[in-house]
């Protein structure tokens, strides 16, 4: 079980969280120490990669920031790539837990998508380093990371695809539509993160929602959902 939650549940910065985590030797069970070390390494990796980029982040710097010995780093991970992939996995797993908790599968499909997109954009705003790792740096960290990024996009396709029942002409829609929509949203967020505009990402919700819903429910209903989102943001 992850010790942190993505987004709303955790408002402290990663640096603050690192400062609160106990370094060094303690009279505590070995498993706890190992877990704490691992968590510190992953948090340091996330913060450093988001700040400096994957290529300019070194293992020495990760160990120093996490306040662990270099040998401790290698007890947990074979190399920088393995550590990055673990940081990516923990972030996406934590995000998946939040989605599972906040999206009610008994709601209308359009409401589920509206909630999912709102939660996603909120997470990107509140957990910018993790979002940067998953959306920006995963595309610059080698083939395994790139494959994970692609898998992340593909993981949202089934939920979007449920919307096809709402379009009587759905058989015409391209097979890859859902992954393409996910890719389009990810690229938009990517551009905002690279431009240092994470704080404004939540404001994108109405247009993101409209574009996402239109193929399934048409532009009129999608427009209504976007207007409702606009009203929520204004409130």
């Amino acid at each position, binding site marked *: 079980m992850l010790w942190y939650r993505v987004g709303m549940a955790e408002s402290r910065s990663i640096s603050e969280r690192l400062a609160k985590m106990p370094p060094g030797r303690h009279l505590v069970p070995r498993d706890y120490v190992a877990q704490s070390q691992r968590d510190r390494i992953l948090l340091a990796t996330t913060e450093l990669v988001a700040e400096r980029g994957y290529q300019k982040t070194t293992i020495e710097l990760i160990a120093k920031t996490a306040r662990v010995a270099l040998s401790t780093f290698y007890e947990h991970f074979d190399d920088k790539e393995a550590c990055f992939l673990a940081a990516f996995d923990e972030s996406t797993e934590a995000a998946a837990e939040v989605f599972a908790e906040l999206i009610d599968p008994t709601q209308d499909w359009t409401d589920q998508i509206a909630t999912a997109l709102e939660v996603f954009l909120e997470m990107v705003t509140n957990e910018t380093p993790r979002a940067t790792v998953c959306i920006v740096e995963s595309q610059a960290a080698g*083939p395994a990371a790139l494959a994970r990024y692609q898998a992340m996009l593909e993981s949202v396709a089934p939920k979007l695809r449920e919307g096809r029942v709402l379009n009587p002409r759905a058989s015409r829609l391209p097979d890859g539509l859902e*992954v*393409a929509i996910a*890719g*389009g949203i990810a690229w*938009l967020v990517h551009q905002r993160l690279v431009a240092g505009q994470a704080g404004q990402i939540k404001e994108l919700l109405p247009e993101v929602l*409209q*574009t996402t819903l*239109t193929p399934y429910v048409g532009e009129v209903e999608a427009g209504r959902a976007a207007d409702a989102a606009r009203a929520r943001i204004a409130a």
Partner: protein
Amino acid sequence: MSAAAPSAEERFLAAYDEIAAEFCGRVRAAWEGPVSWHDRIWAAGWAAMRFLQEDPPRARFFVVDVNGAGSRAQAHRDRLLQGLADLLDGGREELEDPRTVSRCTAEIAAGAIYGTILTKVKGGCLERREDFLSELVYMAVLPYLGARAAEGELLVQPLR
């Protein structure tokens, strides 16, 4: 004293930029022909498709390999996609009230189009000579002409 030899990354970027310049030149030229935004989308899409189809290994380098080539390569790719978003953003004038949509819609569409091309090229569509232009046009016009009109584009026969 001779200058240092360019790094692998610099050589990659130089090759990428050369291909990108040719690609953009051909798409721009096609775009300038027709008058309406809708016809321009088709013309530019057709030029892009032909460019990809005529040399699949070049297309793979241009579309797929650039992804795993580091942050600078990503930035070069993103400049190209922002150019695509500029073209798509003209679709706002097709709306009853262009103010209802911002440039971010064009960016989503550009990202979706790129994602579609990436999937198709990775999957070997170019080698199989499969045409997916109508899917790209669908993504381009969907936010501006609406679902019904965009679906109509999917019925257009591939151009050969």
